[in-house]
């Protein structure tokens, strides 16, 4: 516990209030934090649309090589994040199919917020898939059968029974995915040094100006992250409490 708290606390103690106030006024810092938040949120929301149905399939159906699929889902967590960045870059750079398709509509994914979001999603999506899968696995199959017996189509069963009952795990997974995406450095820096997300900016300040210049940015970003993290935890907790109440 001390190991986690002490360095963070030390950082806060070493940061003077005027320094922090200057940082808040630094347009570059603010826009990078804003970029970080919305790319991560965008990545989470867009990929949730795919990850949630996929997690449902994993929870409900058996298919050949399912164990392998489950292992593959976890791969982004265990590989070095710079390597993950290289992998993402390999898919979106201009000479690939995806890159060419994007260029056709006038988009260069490398160095673009969409590229950043893809890098964030790549390393953080396992958190959402696994949490959602756990959530769906905990919904009794009996309830889905009962719903079908009462005349509901599979689609209606999913939206009116499975999804609401797994919701608290899904929201928890989305919070984790968002938080993980927001704090990602390694994969993002490979795909896009500019525009700078906050972790890259902190690294740049550290490299160019040293510890004293990097610290206030780090402190500010941690504060913003913590505020969001606590808020989202509260939201998922209320989903959790409601879920508990109904079970």
């Amino acid at each position, binding site marked *: 516990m001390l190991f986690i708290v002490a360095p963070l606390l030390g950082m806060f103690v070493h940061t003077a209030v005027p320094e922090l106030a200057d940082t808040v006024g630094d347009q570059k810092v603010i826009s990078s934090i804003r970029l970080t938040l919305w790319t991560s949120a965008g990545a989470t929301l867009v990929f949730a649309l795919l990850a949630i149905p996929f997690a449902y399939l994993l929870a409900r159906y058996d298919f050949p090589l399912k164990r392998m699929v489950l292992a593959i889902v976890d791969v982004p967590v265990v590989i070095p994040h710079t390597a993950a960045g290289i992998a993402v870059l390999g898919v979106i750079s201009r000479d690939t199919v995806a890159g060419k398709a994007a260029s056709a509509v006038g988009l260069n994914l490398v160095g673009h917020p969409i590229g950043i979001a893809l890098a964030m999603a790549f390393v953080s999506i396992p958190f959402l898939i696994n949490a959602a899968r756990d959530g769906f696995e905990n919904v009794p199959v009996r*309830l889905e*059968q009962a719903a*079908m017996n*009462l005349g509901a189509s599979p689609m209606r069963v999913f939206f009116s029974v499975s999804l609401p009952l797994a919701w608290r795990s899904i929201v928890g997974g989305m919070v984790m995915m968002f938080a993980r995406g927001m704090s990602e450095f390694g994969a993002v820096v490979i795909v896009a040094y500019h525009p700078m997300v906050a972790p890259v900016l902190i690294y740049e300040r550290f490299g160019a100006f040293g510890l004293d210049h990097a610290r206030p940015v780090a402190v500010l970003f941690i504060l913003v992250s913590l505020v969001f993290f606590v808020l989202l935890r509260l939201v998922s907790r209320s989903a959790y409490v409601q879920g508990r109440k*109904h*079970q």
Partner: protein
Amino acid sequence: MFRVENISKSLGPFSLDEVSFRCAAGDYFVILGRSGAGKTLLLEIMAGIRSPDAGALILDQRDITSLRIQNRGVGLVFQDQAVFPHMSVAANLAFPLKRKGWGRSYIRRRIHQLAQTTGLEHLLDRFPSTLSGGEVQRAVLARTLASEPRLLLLDEPLNSLDVQYKRELQTLLSHLNQQGQTIIHVTHDYQEASALASKVAVMENGRIQQQGPLPEVFRNPASSFVAEFVGIRNFFRGNVENPPGGDHKIFRIRGSSLFFILPSHVPNSVASITLEAKNILLSRSRPDTSALNNFKGRVQQVIPASLGMEVVVDVGVTLAVLVTRESLSRLNVRKDQQVWVSFKASSINVGSSVGPDPV
């Protein structure tokens, strides 16, 4: 009219073996069997949750065997209740109604109607986690009724309830049946069957052992399993003989040298008999009565029963005798004591005729 024709299904070590029966519109059909006899699997096949390996299900002249679960018109009340925990009672009841595309005001009216029938009016806004077992069971029943099933399937619906709720729900079920709802109800409790059923089928190891109108099955069990299951303690297989020069016929019990004296009008084709435990007299010395059947035996067991005490006596075969607690203490009967049992020839119920031995 619902017909189950030769339904077979293997599921791991367990299988249903050519199960067939007919259930007429308006019947209250009870399938009796121990847990593990295949009752739930059979219900799941009827509801379409599982598909059979072979056989057919015909509902109102239509083959529904491979019809989708949603379109069968068969409502199943699961044993584990399966109430939607994230919805109020009213929302649970509304669930099947919304599918039919009815207007809000109709749905509201219908919910209140159903709540009235099932005594849920004051609970409509509550969530299932705040309800008692009996209330949840009624909510689930009302929800299934809301889907207007042509056939209502009940899986041990009274199992988890205490005596008072049980009686309430029993009354409700027979009321629904009287209003024309066809019901198939599976249970392990023969008293439930005798209270509700118009027809029964007794199931053992994935097969139907015997089926028919309730009084017939309960009076003439086709096998010792059925007899035991429907609460008959004294069931014997054997054959009728005419001793030379006698006024009476005798029933020689299979696997024993023992025979009972029968009234002379009993047909020779009779292959099994039953004796009600309450029609057998117990005494310490040889009774001096007109009863023709008198046997000396040894008390094997004395068991409390709902209507007194059951004394199990070994007379060569075991006979269960029902006596009141007062008689028992007056006679001072204990385990391993020698006693006499006697019964009239006319108190023997003759069962089914000679046929293939079902067990």
